[in-house]
């Protein structure tokens, strides 16, 4: 029995569409029971993404699910035609990642999720008028001026529950009770790695609950993309997770190329992957430096940045940019690599192992560092899958979630490298995964240098990239392994020059959702080390 037949037997009223993944159309009232059997009977334990879409005649969500054992994928579409009071059933009791992703949908589209325990806005101010990603959103600046007063009612939340007879009740409540002692941390704090705000309730020094408040750097990228042409949208990817700008851009390029059916020359693919891996090294080194600095070891930061500068030089020679490269373009890369590129990368790869050893000598064996990280912030394998905490954080808990292995893209299936897995799930394991991944990236780069030499002089961009890029009507989803985990792009096109809907599924958002799980029961001082070890980048979360 194939997947479609299995699902049809579970939910006879579902309709199916073939596509890159099987798409299941299901009515909202059957969605929750289908979701339950998808998870429990068919083993779809990883909810990759929840994407809200406004299809004009209806509002709804696309769910992308993966079975982590078999790597089977399926997508589900659930929609409602009620625009006044749109409601869908929540699946946050099955997949914890929906806790935060459904809140995002509520914030952007105003869809209330029945059974979701915490329906607050996620990115916009609590007093924001309207739902910005709806097609009928009123963008009048008078409705939403720059407000300089504090946000009131930020504790107010509500939950909509349904009883057996289908009767809905809305209950208002406060996320912190009166007896909670709340410690605010951020949004402007040197250890939040950006403008994250974490509010934690403490009992003595022990954390009982952490509530992340996002949106302080929400720049409305997804909304802006809808008014841009496809090549223009590429621009934003470098500014979301600026520590994995190449991978993000690669992802969007892959998605557009997939929709266009464009073949990318081999040489371009090699160059792209090289930049991705260089970027990954840069990101992990920064994570190392910042994590050590958060614990007071400023020297480590200076050492880490020494290698980052060298990396920046390599980038700059080829692309002219230090941080934002704008190098991957639709069909290939923007220009050929600098003549010194291979030589520089080889040199960099040659010195890096000794530098990593230096990092270990400086920090890893340190008693304070060990005491503050080993056995702290533990999160188990089942939880990381449920929270969708992919990337190094997931691998530190024993989840083999590397997209480069799970669903190889570009030329990763030709390359020889190991997926770094630790099983402890604590801050130290997360740190070690990163350090080991740097070495894996070095191994990859060495192979890639050889491959690139063989391709000398070949095309670096596909010869037939259309001048004006129009995607056929339809929708596509693509994932890559960014520095922080699985980064996904969802594009919905109506056949025009601009995307109808573009959604970026950032790994950081899931990490933030898991902060509460990681921190509960530990001391308030551990909040710093735990969030440093999760290594999220805020513009990636907020977009």
């Amino acid at each position, binding site marked *: 029995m194939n997947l479609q037949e299995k699902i049809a037997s579970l939910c006879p009223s579902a309709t199916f569409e073939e596509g890159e993944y099987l798409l299941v159309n299901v009515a909202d009232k059957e969605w929750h029971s289908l979701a339950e059997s998808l998870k429990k009977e068919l083993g779809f334990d990883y909810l990759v993404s929840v994407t809200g879409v406004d299809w004009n005649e209806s509002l709804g969500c696309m769910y992308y699910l993966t079975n982590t054992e078999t790597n089977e994928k399926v997508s589900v579409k659930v929609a409602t035609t009620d625009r006044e009071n749109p409601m869908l059933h929540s699946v946050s009791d099955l997949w914890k990642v929906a806790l935060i992703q459904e809140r995002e949908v509520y914030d952007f589209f105003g869809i209330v999720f029945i059974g979701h325990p915490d329906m607050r806005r996620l990115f916009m101010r609590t007093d924001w008028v309207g739902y910005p990603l709806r097609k009928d959103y009123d963008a009048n600046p008078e409705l939403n001026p720059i407000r*300089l007063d504090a946000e009131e009612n930020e504790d107010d939340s509500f939950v909509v529950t349904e009883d057996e007879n289908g009767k809905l009740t809305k209950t208002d409540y406060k996320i912190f009770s009166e007896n909670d002692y709340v410690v605010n941390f951020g949004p402007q704090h040197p250890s939040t790695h950006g403008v994250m705000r974490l509010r934690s309730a403490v009992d003595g020094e022990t954390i009982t609950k952490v509530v992340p408040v996002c949106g302080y*750097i*929400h*720049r409305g*990228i997804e909304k802006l993309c809808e008014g841009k042409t496809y090549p223009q949208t590429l621009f934003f990817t470098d500014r979301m997770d*600026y520590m994995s700008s190449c991978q993000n851009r690669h992802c969007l390029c892959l998605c557009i190329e997939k929709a266009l059916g464009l073949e990318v020359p081999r040489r371009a693919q090699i160059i792209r992957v090289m930049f991705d891996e260089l970027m990954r090294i840069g990101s992990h080194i920064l994570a190392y430096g910042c994590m050590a600095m958060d614990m007071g070891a400023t020297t480590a930061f200076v050492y880490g940045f*020494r290698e980052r500068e060298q990396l920046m030089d390599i980038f700059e020679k080829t692309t002219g940019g230090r941080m934002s490269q704008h190098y991957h373009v639709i069909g290939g890369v923007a220009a050929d690599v600098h003549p010194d590129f291979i030589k520089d990368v080889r040199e960099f790869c040659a010195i890096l192992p000794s530098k990593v050893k230096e990092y270990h000598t400086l920090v890893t064996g340190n008693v304070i560092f060990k005491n503050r990280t080993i056995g702290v912030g533990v999160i188990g394998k089942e939880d990381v899958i449920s929270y969708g905490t992919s990337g190094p954080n997931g691998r530190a808990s024993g989840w083999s979630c590397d997209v480069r292995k799970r669903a190889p893209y570009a030329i990763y299936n030709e390359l020889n490298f190991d997926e770094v897995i630790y099983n402890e799930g604590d801050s130290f394991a997360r740190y070690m995964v990163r350090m080991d991944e740097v070495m894996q990236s070095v191994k990859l780069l060495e192979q890639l240098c050889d491959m690139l030499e063989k391709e000398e002089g070949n095309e670096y961009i596909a010869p037939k990239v259309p001048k004006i890029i129009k995607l056929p009507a339809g929708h596509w989803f693509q994932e890559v392994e960014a520095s922080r985990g699985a980064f996904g792009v969802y594009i919905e096109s109506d056949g025009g020059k601009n995307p109808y809907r573009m959604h970026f599924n950032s790994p950081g958002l899931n990490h933030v959702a898991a902060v509460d799980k990681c921190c509960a029961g530990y001391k308030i001082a551990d909040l710093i080390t735990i969030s440093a070890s999760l290594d999220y980048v805020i513009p990636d979360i907020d977009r």
Partner: protein
Amino acid sequence: MKRDDWKDNEYIDQLVEELNASGANVVVGTLDKLINWGRANSLWPLCFGTSCCAIEFMHLGAARHDMARFGFEVTRNSPRQADLLMVNGTITYRMAPVLMRLYEQMAEPKYVIATGSCNISGGPFIGSHCVVQGLDKLLPVDVWIPGCPPRPEAMYYGMMQLQRKIMTQKYFGGVNRQEKLKDFLAEHPEEAEGLK
């Protein structure tokens, strides 16, 4: 960049002219110079890093660019100890009240540097429904540094222009008394009540 180019800044020339026109007392003028020399070379920035530009600012602090050479290295985490608000990164509607609050908590004389095209005009996010389209909508800005993100060298250029500006300012009776007590009380009647 040649030194002459660096000195080419009409705005500062104008400041110098104003200063000369009103004439400076010899003693006070010399003291001014001394104090300004000290102030300009020990600017403590409040690092207000919100996004990408902040990473370049971190590079400024690391070994190769080493901002300690210019006296910028004491980045403060509390606005009360900072002279300079270095806005690195996009300011969104949700962040604006926080930024204003920090700015108001800083002690006079205070300066603002806006880094990156985001802060100049909204930059890449021009037209976004939730990005402040230019920092001048919120604060008086002393130096704008263009770039996305600006290179560390560009940041230096901007920060050194601020040093020049400080060196030409009148300290006594100038920036050290931006608000007279009388004017302040007139504007804030509730404080005057408290004094009585």
